[in-house]
């Protein structure tokens, strides 16, 4: 079956390809046999091809990416099966042979539509650490106090101290903003690495029972109020794209380290478990 499986393609599509093409081939030849009127020849051909197709399918199902089961040689390689003895190329077989594999054929089928720009604009809501997606708006601490009490306090508590329904947002008087310390609650002042992520999330998913209901100005304002309650900005400060980006890397930003692409686990001390 190595003739069918071109080496430069990844294994799983190839395995599928072999199976698919041979099923097409077997089916085509069955049709040929039924229509040719040469019963002996047609029956013999279709039987042999069916066996080949079955074996290929088995090899694929067991995860043999190279399809070695067809090394038994009962199936003709791609590009040849459409010229089986006593038959002539069928349209289906010819198209399959000419089109390459199923994936390539599907890509030529022009599936899906060009994305309308207004759909992209409406759905592209993420705000990224480089500031992409921030709105040109302004929010104030004082306005944020009202937004918080109207939308957030019922779950996070009037002071942002958290309830059994939603987590603590404000550290409280006995803790300063800074890198996260073992055992501490996780707030914007001591855990979240980026302010843009905080804004993105509140806009995306809050308030919990009515997400997306806050205006852009409301979001900036309520974030300003939470930052203010955590002692991170003054009472009269405003948030806009410039001021957000100036403080975008939050106090705990340096504490994160990625485990991709270099995996951190399993930890060396956990390897070599005594057996």
């Amino acid at each position, binding site marked *: 079956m190595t003739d069918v499986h071109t080496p430069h393609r990844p294994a799983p599509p190839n395995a599928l390809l072999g199976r698919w093409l041979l099923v097409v081939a077997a089916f085509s030849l069955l049709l040929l046999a039924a229509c040719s009127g040469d019963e002996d020849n047609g029956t013999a051909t279709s039987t042999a091809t069916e066996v080949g197709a079955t074996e290929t399918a088995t090899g694929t199902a067991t995860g043999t990416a190279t399809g070695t089961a067809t090394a038994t040689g009962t199936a003709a390689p791609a590009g040849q099966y459409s010229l089986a003895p006593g038959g002539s190329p069928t349209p289906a077989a010819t198209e399959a042979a000419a089109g390459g594999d199923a994936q390539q054929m599907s890509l030529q089928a022009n599936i899906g539509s060009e994305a309308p720009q207004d759909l992209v604009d409406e759905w592209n809501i993420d705000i990224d650490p480089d500031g992409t997606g921030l709105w040109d708006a302004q929010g104030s601490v004082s306005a944020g106090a009202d937004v918080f009490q109207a939308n957030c306090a019922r779950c996070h508590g009037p002071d942002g101290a958290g309830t059994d329904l939603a987590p603590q947002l404000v550290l409280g008087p006995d803790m300063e903003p800074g890198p996260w310390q073992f055992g501490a609650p996780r707030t914007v002042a001591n855990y979240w690495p980026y302010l843009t992520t905080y804004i993105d999330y509140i806009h995306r998913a809050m308030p919990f029972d009515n997400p997306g209901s806050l205006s852009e100005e409301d979001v900036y304002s309520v974030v300003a109020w939470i930052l203010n309650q955590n002692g991170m900005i003054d009472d009269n400060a405003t948030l806009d794209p410039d001021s957000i980006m100036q403080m975008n890397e939050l106090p705990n930003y340096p*504490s994160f380290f*990625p485990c991709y692409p270099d995996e951190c686990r399993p930890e060396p001390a956990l390897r070599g*478990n005594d057996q």
Partner: protein
Amino acid sequence: MSDDRNLLPHIPVGPNSLLSRRRLLQAGGAVAGGLALSRITRAGAQQPPPAPNELVPPPDPPWSAQGQPFTTQGIRSPYVEIQRAYSGGDSPNVTRQTAGSNFAPLQDLDGIITPSDLHFQRNHSGTTIIDPAEHQVLVHGMVDRPKVYSMDDIKRFPRRTEIHFLECSGNSGAGYSGPSPDTTAQLMHGLTSTSEWGGVPMTTIMQDVGVQEGAEWALFEGADASRMDRSVPRSKLEDDAMLVYIQNGEPIRPEQGFPLRLLLPGWEGNTQIKWLRRIEFGSGPFYTKEETRHYTDALPDGQSRQFTYEMEVKSLITWPSAGHQVPAPGFWEINGIAWSGFGTITGVEVSVDGGNSWGPAELMQPVLPKAHVRFRFPWVWDGTPRVIMSRATDDTGYTQPARQRLLDIRGTQYIYHFDAIQPWLVDADGAVTNAMGQSASDLPSDTQISEEYL
């Protein structure tokens, strides 16, 4: 650790046999009771009892009468009670009822495939019901051809079917703080399930839109109320990622993301966005809330690991486990599940003496990469208190650690990726409880359990 541990001599009793044997005993008791009753009714008290050697044909049990009519939807036997358990419990609050976890009943399941209606759930803002005829999937960003697909479009692409587990990265998280003795396999480890998934490889979609050079990451976003989103590196998308719409032979259920979800075999469940509506390619991670505030792993020194994607090797004994009762001393077959997000399980060892000795369990077929594998281990219980546990090894050579070794490195604030060995205490009366987090001095002295496992 040798590779031939699963080539043990065949043990002529399967885990199903164990269950059916117990059921047969129960059923036998019911039949015998019916027999005695019917004799009195039919024959009356006057008739002498049959001679000892006389063969008495058993009466037909009631279920041998004409049965129930066909139904369009299948049902479980009324004698089978298996159900999920969710974290919100009886709370009437909408937050508690829509955000949280719904645990699969591991101690009541068998085989490797989880029935779809018992598949675990971890929702961030409820299950959303999407009309597939209206659903669209947008792919944009660093691509040559930004596209939008209908579900009919998605289904035209050549499909692939694979069997993989899905596991919440917070599964077994009670292990960091220490569970209570009555914490069952379900409530401890029930945020994992295995299904047969069908859909289109991400590579096909990526070729269709023409992902540009330098687009090393993609953002995946759901259409649910939380617009749940996560960044996924291109290498995983090119490796084995799929957009799936089939689960165990039927359209995936709303609870699992109908009509379309991302599947990233072996990775944290939360990365595998349900109700998928948008894919945006970009040059770097997008640093969403679910990869900063949550799903990052805080260490004792205050640092936090980020992008810890693979779920580590794990196993547990599902029978007998907390809440079960071992009926009597004698032969019983221990069984359980093992899996690894790094690859394929190569072996499971079982200890029935608190970790003082370990023996290889038999891995039951099929043994598939990044899928639950079922194991079994024959056990003759001598009736003394025992701590039983399993430890799995995968083909990267990683073996589940003892709990204290894991805590020494990760501390108790890590939340996610708990994969330590699960000890169960079988007491002298056969009652099974969770031994994790207990003090060795509180356990029966003859269990001889080492503190490192507790």
